[in-house]
């Protein structure tokens, strides 16, 4: 049980430190204008990485299953202007239907 509590304490401290690092070290002063442009570009890069690792990677391997097709379908409707709720709904419905049909 001690192992569990040591782990919980360690993960809590490490998480707080990682989240605090940027705001503590870099905030409160004017940063070069180019900084703003990098930040503006960071969102698309990180979001894309989160999406592709969620649907195309599993346990250190590349995969493509029902959720990849479901999320791809959601991307199409999002591109055509669908709302967030509709986009998520399409992803869930397509994924669930494909799994019902036996896809992994």
């Amino acid at each position: 049980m001690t192992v569990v509590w040591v782990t919980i304490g360690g993960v809590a401290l490490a998480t707080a430190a990682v989240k605090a690092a940027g705001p503590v070290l870099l905030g409160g002063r004017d940063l070069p204008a180019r900084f703003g442009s990098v930040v503006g570009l960071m969102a698309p890069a990180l979001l894309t990485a989160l999406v592709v690792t969620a649907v195309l990677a599993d346990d250190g391997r590349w995969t493509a299953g029902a959720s990849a097709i479901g999320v791809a379908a959601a991307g199409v409707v999002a591109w055509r202007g669908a709302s967030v709720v509709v986009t998520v709904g399409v992803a869930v419905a397509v994924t669930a239907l494909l799994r019902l049909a036996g896809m992994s």
Partner: protein
Amino acid sequence: MTPADRSSLREGLRLGVAFGIAGFLLSMSFGVVARESGFSLVAAVTMSVIVFAGSAQFAAVAVLGAGGGPVAAVAAATLMNSRFLPMGVALAPSLPGRAWWRGVQGQAVVDSSWAVASNGDGTFDRWRLFGTTLPQYGAWQLGTLVGAYGGDVIGDLERFGLDAVYPAFFLAILVPELRDRDRLGVAVAGGLVALALVPVAPPGVPVLAAGLAALWGLRRGGER
């Protein structure tokens, strides 16, 4: 708080409830997995209360469940969380106050709240950030409690396609940004970097490395 702040907070709270529903289901499965890995009910809930970072919690519990020690578990969780480093750097100039107070406000970052708080021009709306995080924090604790106490109420999340909720949410936020050519280029580069690293790097590193694609995009933009 200005009226604009208040409306940002309200907008965030509304979005946060939607994310919270998905988070509730996810944290319920965390509660179940934690109990199976030898966590007591109190330990599972304590971890959710003081850590509040889904992928890191799952990573730490998986290491312990597979027989690893605390050092390996904390290392795996920290790698998983490493993406909060570039997110915090991006957010920093939008947080007011002294250093310690900015550090406290930075704790409110979770993937979804960071993404919706981004104004797209390099600045962030901190009240939208706080608002989006708040309901998710409550839902995360509630889900952990239900999962750790009562086991899986819903059953297999994947059967209902619920594992597609999070990536689809992020895609919905991402797509409007892709109409800009520079952003599209950086998004493609970030995605390719992350995918390329999946088989060779520990979990968490691929997403961190994708953040560096933004620097590449800046150089490209600067050359024109």
